[in-house]
């Protein structure tokens, strides 16, 4: 019996191979398709042909016997129905897998360029179609009805898959787009072999397929020559409860798989701990108490603290959290089809940020006055700025009676600097080799072999000092977010290739090496520097304060291990050490541990 089935599948395989080999040749010879290589025509034909192959292999389980009027003879053979299904399915499954492996190998050796569909969606559809068609193979005596039913089931199946993730995302208040589930439905060629699919997706997909397969196995145990509707009735009798169970299970998997857990903590100046998580309410720990905001946020990332207010870095709106009354307030929302760039800055009573169209055009510097809640918009017409999605504002000053804003971008590994005037004028100041800074009304830029200090003299920036320096050093006031010019004495920086920490004295303009750089610097306005040292890659951290050219160790974390998911956050108010579920908070200046009971 198995031999007969194998020979039948082999016959069909030969016909399939001939069709997919000859069809491209006919298309090329008849010049229906011309000027293309044989392989570039063959491969998409082959790939689409495989869908039909999977469909045919699934639906043809009994069609041979039906065509030959041999179904009664088949059923009278000394096999149980399950044995019959096993014998008939095995060669078909092997054929489906063999052709899939051929496809994978051809895909790797050049098929990717001419593929008709993306790899993962193709794989999913190919096997799903086969299994669905197989499970419906006894659904009707008519091959066309079977094919249509299988395709309809495939669409329903994919609809359900989408629905399950849609429901899971709604329950979690996560936009569906965050889950990358759409990738599974894209049939555009050229995407990579493996996509970043949501966790448990294969389990959800299998759970939704199970009702079809289990109902098939259960109903086929009593498959006979009665009209298909008798079997279908039995099929649905099993299908309905199994489907309800599997749908619930798939929802659970989808719900579990869409859990985006990335808790992070921020210590405010008044020693309150803010807990952020994706698509959650913000939690504020204050001694023994914990408070939650009313509203959920995509991800509230505190970065700018002033008095009792904490401003966010991440959201599509300008959001401010009041740590006294624990209320989060949306200060500004961009107009439709406009979006904010990543960071917000603050100058006096003004929140400053950049806004652009979704297509990166129409960049504007937006000044939001916190008292009047009014915005002033300054258009920026500078292509190199809008080409880059993350331009930064790094300084502001008055020249004459007009205020200007300094913005840097990145272009060809260089940093173009732009001066945007409040009256709408835009000057391109020039380009610097490394990230520029603006401190004490001085612009710090870099040539290949020098550090350049410039100052604005109403007519433009003029160099006041050029310090010869060949190492790839950049001084930083990164993550400052305050644009108020409070004079500072010194600025620290580090090199990328040359692993040193250096200090620039802003009075004498002397540069000195302070120590070896392995880790990262943290800057807090005005003029406060910390250095988080990585002793061994991934494990153990030391935290230093950098002051007057000295590195003073504040605290060591020898049991820090990034491989175990540990993380260390340094804030102006202290240090937060996250070790799994254990959160330790140490407050400056004495690094006394703060206790939050409900943490």
């Amino acid at each position: 019996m198995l031999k007969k089935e194998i020979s039948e599948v082999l016959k069909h395989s030969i016909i399939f191979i001939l069709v997919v080999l000859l069809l491209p040749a006919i298309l090329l010879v008849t010049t229906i398709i011309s000027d293309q290589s044989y392989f570039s025509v063959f491969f998409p034909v082959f790939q689409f042909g495989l869908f039909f192959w999977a469909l045919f292999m699934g639906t043809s389980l009994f069609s041979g016997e039906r065509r030959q009027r041999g179904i009664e003879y088949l059923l009278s053979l000394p096999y149980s129905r399950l044995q019959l299904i096993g014998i008939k399915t095995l060669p078909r499954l092997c054929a489906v897998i063999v052709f899939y492996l051929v496809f994978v190998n051809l895909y790797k050796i050049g098929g990717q360029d001419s593929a008709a569909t993306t790899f993962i969606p193709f794989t999913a559809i190919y096997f799903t179609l086969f299994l669905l068609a197989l499970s419906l193979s006894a659904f009707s005596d008519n091959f066309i009805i079977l094919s249509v039913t299988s395709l309809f089931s495939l669409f329903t199946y994919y609809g359900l898959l989408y629905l399950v993730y849609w429901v899971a995302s709604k329950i979690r208040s996560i936009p569906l787009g965050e889950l990358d589930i759409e990738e599974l439905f894209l049939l555009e060629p050229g995407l990579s072999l493996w996509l970043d699919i949501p966790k448990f997706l294969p389990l959800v997909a299998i759970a939704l397929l199970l009702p079809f397969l289990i109902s098939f196995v259960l109903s086929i145990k009593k498959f006979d020559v009665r009209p298909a509707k008798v079997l279908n009735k039995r099929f649905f009798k099993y299908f309905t409860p199994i489907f309800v169970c599997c749908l619930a299970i798939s929802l659970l998997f989808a719900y579990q798989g869409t859990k985006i857990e990335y808790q992070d903590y921020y210590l405010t100046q008044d020693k309150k701990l803010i807990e952020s998580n994706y698509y959650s309410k913000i939690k504020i720990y204050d001694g023994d108490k914990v408070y939650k905001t009313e509203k959920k946020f995509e991800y509230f990332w505190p970065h700018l603290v002033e008095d009792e207010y904490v401003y966010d870095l991440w959201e599509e709106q300008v959001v401010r959290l009041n740590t006294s009354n624990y209320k989060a307030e949306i200060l500004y929302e961009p107009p439709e089809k406009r979006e904010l760039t990543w960071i917000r800055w603050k100058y006096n009573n003004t929140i400053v940020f950049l806004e652009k169209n979704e297509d990166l055009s129409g960049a504007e510097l937006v000044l939001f006055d916190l008292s009047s809640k009014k915005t002033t918009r300054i258009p920026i017409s500078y292509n190199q700025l809008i080409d880059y999605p993350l331009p930064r504002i790094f300084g502001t000053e008055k020249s004459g009676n007009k205020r200007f804003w300094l913005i840097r971008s990145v272009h060809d590994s260089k940093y173009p600097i732009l001066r945007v005037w409040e009256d709408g004028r835009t000057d391109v100041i020039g380009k610097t080799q490394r990230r520029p800074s603006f401190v004490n009304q001085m612009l710090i830029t870099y040539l290949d072999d020098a550090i350049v200090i410039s100052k604005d003299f109403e007519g433009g920036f003029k160099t006041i000092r050029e310090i010869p320096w060949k190492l790839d050093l950049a001084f930083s006031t990164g993550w400052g977010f305050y644009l108020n010019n409070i004079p500072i004495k010194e600025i620290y920086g580090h090199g990328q290739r040359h692993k040193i920490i250096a200090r620039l004295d802003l009075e004498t303009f002397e540069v000195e090496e302070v120590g070896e750089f392995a880790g990262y610097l943290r800057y807090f306005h005005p003029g406060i520097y910390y250095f988080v040292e990585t002793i061994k890659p991934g494990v153990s951290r030391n935290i230093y304060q950098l002051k007057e050219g000295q590195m003073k160790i504040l605290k060591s974390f020898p049991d820090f291990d990034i491989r175990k998911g540990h993380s260390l956050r340094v804030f102006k108010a202290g240090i937060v050490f996250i070790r799994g579920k254990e959160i330790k908070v140490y407050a400056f200046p004495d690094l006394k541990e703060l206790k939050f009971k409900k943490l």
Partner: protein
Amino acid sequence: MTENILEVDNLRVKIGRKTILDDIRIQFKKNESVVIAGRNGSGKSTFLRCLANVIFPDRGSIVYNKGTTKEKIGFISDQISLFENLTVEQGIRFHSSVFHIEDFDYTLINDLKFDLNQKIKNLSAGEKTLYHLSLLLSQKPEILLIDEIIHTIDPYLREKFLEAVIELIDRYQTTVIMINHTFSEIEKIPERVLVMEKGQFILDEKCETLGEKIKSVVSEKEIPEEIPYILKRESSFQKEYFIYPFKEEFRKAFPHEYKELSLNDIIKAFVGGQYVKEGN
């Protein structure tokens, strides 16, 4: 007492909302030859298909004697069901491998001069039936189920077919259950007759005693109410009653000539009776 080879209990088959077989309880003995008759749509073929495992009952059980495996059950369908894309030889090889037949009996195949390389689909209906029978004969079945197929075969092949069946009964003590309407052709075969009506057996009698249990009587008068009959045929001059079950005392109650009936006439009376009842 001969053992039962097959016991059917509480058998019910439905197709859609229609009940085809309803609460059938019957036993078949080893080496018994049984003919099932009944009007079209009475459920005969469905019953045979249930025994052949081609239809699963919705309720009830079919229990074969211990040792009677599926390999020992042969079924010839009225639909002539074979893998017709195979050649005669391929069909034999396939059947032999599935039923583990080591020494296939080519006698019938050779007798009928089948071309072994010919596709089964190119055989005539009668040839296909004989070919199928030859496959089953090599299987040495303990139970042979034959649906209403004889009428499709020409007289020569019919004779061959019936000879083969009789030989099978004699050689292997096979239980034969066949559906047929015209008993003149198979008179030598049946020991027991079953008549089916609306999914139930209304007659289950041994052939040897059946003649005693059913008689016909012709009269100008109506017969008394206490005499049961299954069919009444009326003409302008007379009435013919088919009395069942017949008792000797009816001769006193209604003194007339009671005629013996042939098996064929008995079946006709039962089947005809169903039509008359339906008309009433």
